[in-house]
């Protein structure tokens, strides 16, 4: 049985007590200790900046050409915090409760409560850094709603909140680089964790410009490398987002937890053809004002504007009157799939539903007219004024939709369909964000810890920054305090030499296959297996088939992949090949995990386990645990369980009706 090392005591005292009693490292010793950080998204950049400020010697790595390009930058809608600025009943407890319930009772109470506690500090920190959040005319911060909650606790900067938060963290990081506390390695990829006597002591990284391998030692290694949604090939992740750093750690002993918990986001631009390389999200914030519907008649090919109100099915409002269009993502996605599968889908592919702004435009237009004391009933004037308001709130998203689809969403309803967006699963970590390998930590989306089986909107940014700014600066000291007596590890230690040899052997093997099939082709095939059989709905037969198909795909990959170019130069195909090889192995584990979890919960929907109304049916008696997988050998994993204890919240059938 795994121990998450949750502190004793009442829920709201756990974190203050921990902070009051954890071990500290004195400033003189901090200066001597190097810490390696992989990834510079919200979690990595905030951790690198904060640890640099504390005086540690930090080495940060990213595969992009600048730390500011990490994929946190693309987060659109917002960041949650229990500020209760709106006086609408929010509190730390309510944010905690919403997150536990939203995660369908598969997250840890202790972690989630800490997250809710520090959420308020995050907003303060970001404002102090100069993050230009949206404001009201009185100069105070503005809020909006997100799915799965009934309060307005989401802070935002138009549809570019992730960008603004990341730039804040990036600027803090650049400041530490200028001060010499952080050394930045752009265009570098971590390809191995080096462990000595069971502890993480460094990494092997590849310089993606020269192709050279480098050995870096440190007292701790923090993996802040993001999620693995690209295992599905098509997702809202960046093209380079990958599981490689986490997967190498997994193969070196770190447990991988709940890998099958993936988030399918309900509002993305639908696939347009075979050439598609990625999918684009339309922020959940659009569900604040937009209404989702399909025609009441199957295969209705009429222009949406010609379908009268009475012949439209606003199915979320119909099925979930209490939360309406703002149900959590997993619920909204499944409802869209249900309608499309039943033949009500729209657009050429019939794999889409409408997200309609006509009502919102009229509503805002009427409000604007009221402000101007105009009693006009001229519809076109109202529409004109309403569009201006919608443009201010969501303009960049509407523009993006138009560029991609060629349709004007102010005129015609947007077509949307669910797409892979986020992975709740990840490296298993304890309360201190440490994996089961001492000295190896995981932060942000790369770990599994806070979102259970479904993440609520605007909570990923919160978690990434919570981990980096406010959790790791305390918890890592608790480990490093006992390490100060050990001298720094030389990069000429045999463990480093062996790890480097292993990495270069693997690269040479890949290069020498000289097969016929491109990396991209394999990736697409993997994605199709995963989407068809381990996607929004799963069943035992499909998952068993998928495992066999993936094993076969792996054989073909390692005998037929074609990688042009050389090792010692910039070689994007080689970079991709390494990542796809790891995705293939991960895909198998995801199917295995989905197969063993004989229940439905959150984003994990097993067709065999549903209520009469088609909602996810949990099995708390048998599956109220974190599934943490230990890598044993090829195609072989051992399951370790961490029981989840609910002392405060009573798990019930989740209802948004």
């Amino acid at each position, binding site marked *: 049985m795994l121990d998450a090392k949750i502190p004793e005591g009442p829920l709201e005292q756990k974190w203050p007590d921990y902070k009051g009693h954890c071990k500290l490292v004195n400033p003189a010793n901090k200066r001597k200790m190097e810490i390696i950080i992989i990834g510079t998204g919200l979690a990595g950049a*905030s951790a690198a*900046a*904060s640890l640099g*400020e504390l005086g540690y010697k930090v080495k940060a790595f990213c595969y*992009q*050409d*600048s730390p*500011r*390009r990490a994929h946190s*930058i*693309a987060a659109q809608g917002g960041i949650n915090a229990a*500020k209760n*600025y709106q006086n609408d009943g929010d509190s730390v407890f309510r944010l905690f409760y919403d997150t536990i319930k939203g995660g369908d009772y598969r997250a840890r109470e202790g972690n989630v409560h800490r997250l809710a506690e520090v959420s308020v*500090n995050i907003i*303060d*920190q*970001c*404002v*102090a850094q*100069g993050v*230009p959040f949206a*404001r009201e*005319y*009185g*100069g*105070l911060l503005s809020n909006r709603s997100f799915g799965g909650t009934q309060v307005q606790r989401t802070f935002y900067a138009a549809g*570019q909140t992730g960008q*603004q938060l990341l730039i804040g963290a990036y*600027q*803090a990081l*650049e*400041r530490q680089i*200028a001060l010499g506390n952080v050394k*930045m390695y*752009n265009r570098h990829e971590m390809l191995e964790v080096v462990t000595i006597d069971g502890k993480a002591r460094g990494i092997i990284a590849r310089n993606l*410009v020269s192709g050279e391998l480098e050995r870096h030692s440190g007292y701790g290694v923090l993996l802040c490398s993001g999620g693995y949604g690209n295992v599905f090939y098509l997702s809202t992740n*960046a*093209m*380079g987002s990958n599981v490689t750093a986490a997967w190498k750690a997994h193969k070196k002993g770190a447990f991988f937890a709940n890998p099958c918990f993936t988030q399918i986001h309900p509002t993305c631009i639908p696939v347009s053809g075979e*050439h*598609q*390389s*990625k999918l*684009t*999200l339309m922020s959940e914030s659009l569900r604040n004002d937009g209404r989702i519907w399909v025609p009441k008649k199957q295969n209705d090919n009429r222009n949406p504007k010609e379908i009268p109100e009475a012949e439209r099915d606003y199915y979320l409002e119909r099925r979930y009157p209490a939360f309406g269009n703002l149900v959590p993502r997993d619920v909204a996605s499944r409802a869209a799939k249900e309608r499309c599968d039943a033949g009500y889908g729209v657009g050429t592919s019939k794999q889409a539903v409408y997200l309609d702004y006509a009502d919102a435009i009229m509503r805002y237009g009427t409000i604007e007219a009221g402000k101007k004391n105009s009693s006009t009933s001229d519809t076109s004037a109202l529409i004109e004024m309403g569009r201006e308001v919608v443009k201010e709130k969501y303009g960049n998203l509407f523009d*993006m939709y138009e*560029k*991609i*689809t*060629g349709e004007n969403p102010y005129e015609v309803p947007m077509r949307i369909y669910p797409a892979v967006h986020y992975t709740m699963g990840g490296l298993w970590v304890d309360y201190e964000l440490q994996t089961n390998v001492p000295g190896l930590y995981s932060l942000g989306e790369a770990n599994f810890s806070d979102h259970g089986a479904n993440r609520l909107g605007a909570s990923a940014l919160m978690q990434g920054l919570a981990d980096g*700014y406010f959790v790791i*600066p305390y918890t890592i000291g608790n480990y490093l305090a006992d390490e100060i007596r050990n001298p720094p590890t030389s990069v000429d230690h045999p463990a480093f030499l062996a790890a480097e040899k292993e990495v270069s052997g693997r690269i040479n093997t890949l290069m020498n296959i000289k097969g016929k099939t491109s990396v*991209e*082709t394999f990736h697409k095939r993997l994605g199709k297996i995963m989407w068809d059989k381990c996607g929004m709905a799963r069943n035992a037969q499909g998952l068993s088939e998928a495992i066999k198909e993936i094993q076969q795909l792996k054989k073909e990959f390692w005998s037929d992949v074609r990688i*042009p*170019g050389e090792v010692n*130069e*910039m070689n*994007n*195909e080689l970079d991709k090949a390494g990542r796809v090889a790891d995705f293939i192995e991960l895909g198998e584990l995801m199917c295995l995990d989905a197969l063993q979890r004989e229940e439905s919960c959150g984003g994990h929907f097993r067709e065999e386990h549903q209520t009469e109304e088609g909602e996810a049916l949990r099995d708390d008696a048998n599956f109220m645990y974190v599934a943490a997988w230990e890598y044993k050998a090829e195609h072989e994993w051992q399951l370790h369980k961490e029981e989840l204890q609910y002392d405060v919240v009573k798990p019930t059938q989740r209802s948004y009706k």
Partner: protein
Amino acid sequence: MEHYNMNLSLKIWRQKNVKANGAFETYQVKDISSEMSFLEMIDVLNEDLIREGKDPIAFDHDCREGICGSCSMYINGKPHGPWKATTVCQLHMRAFKEGETIVVEPWRANAFPVVKDLVVDRSAFDRIVQAGGYISVNTGNAVDGNAIPIDKDNADKSFAAAACIACGACVAACKNSSAMLFTSAKVSHLALLPQGGPERKTRAINMVAQMDKEGFGACTNIGACEAACPKEIRLTNIARLNAEYLSASLTIDKEN
């Protein structure tokens, strides 16, 4: 929206590495859908090249949503191609017609050396930020977010400047390869907020000094940068930087 397929000629800059000489090579692509993005069209070409045993074209790209700022192609003489306020990754092939020839180059600027093919080194931008593009506040020092009310107009202007994605199109568009639009966007973002006040003078002076040191050219107020900017960063930011710089130069205590 009408969909159509097209055949195109591409003249693309190929350069093995920073030291090698580069040259244009011509490629043909067939049956390109008008629904593809420009980068998906390059993906198609690259798959063809791999099949033929040739080296695919290296280019920077990541989010493909127009926000990370990685993509950087100079298309038919324009940074990011023909569409206004659009990054290459959001440029779609319906911007082109059957039989067209499209010329694709990397950003051209001394401060952005070519790494390979269409990939350039933009680390100079990071160093300009290191020179002062931040507010010096350590984690844990902050007061309550609403303790600092900020006039909405300034907050909105600050946000508009902070929307810069550091892609470098402004530099590529400028005949002097000036980085003034980039630098002024960062200076404006922070100067428009009260939190940025204490370091206002040193920030303007140090960031401009670093910009010059990196080898970017001077600004002659042509405005090509603003026209090319995918995030519509306004030229008024440059005016603000000039004002900040001038006032800082006249009033800063030189002995420090």
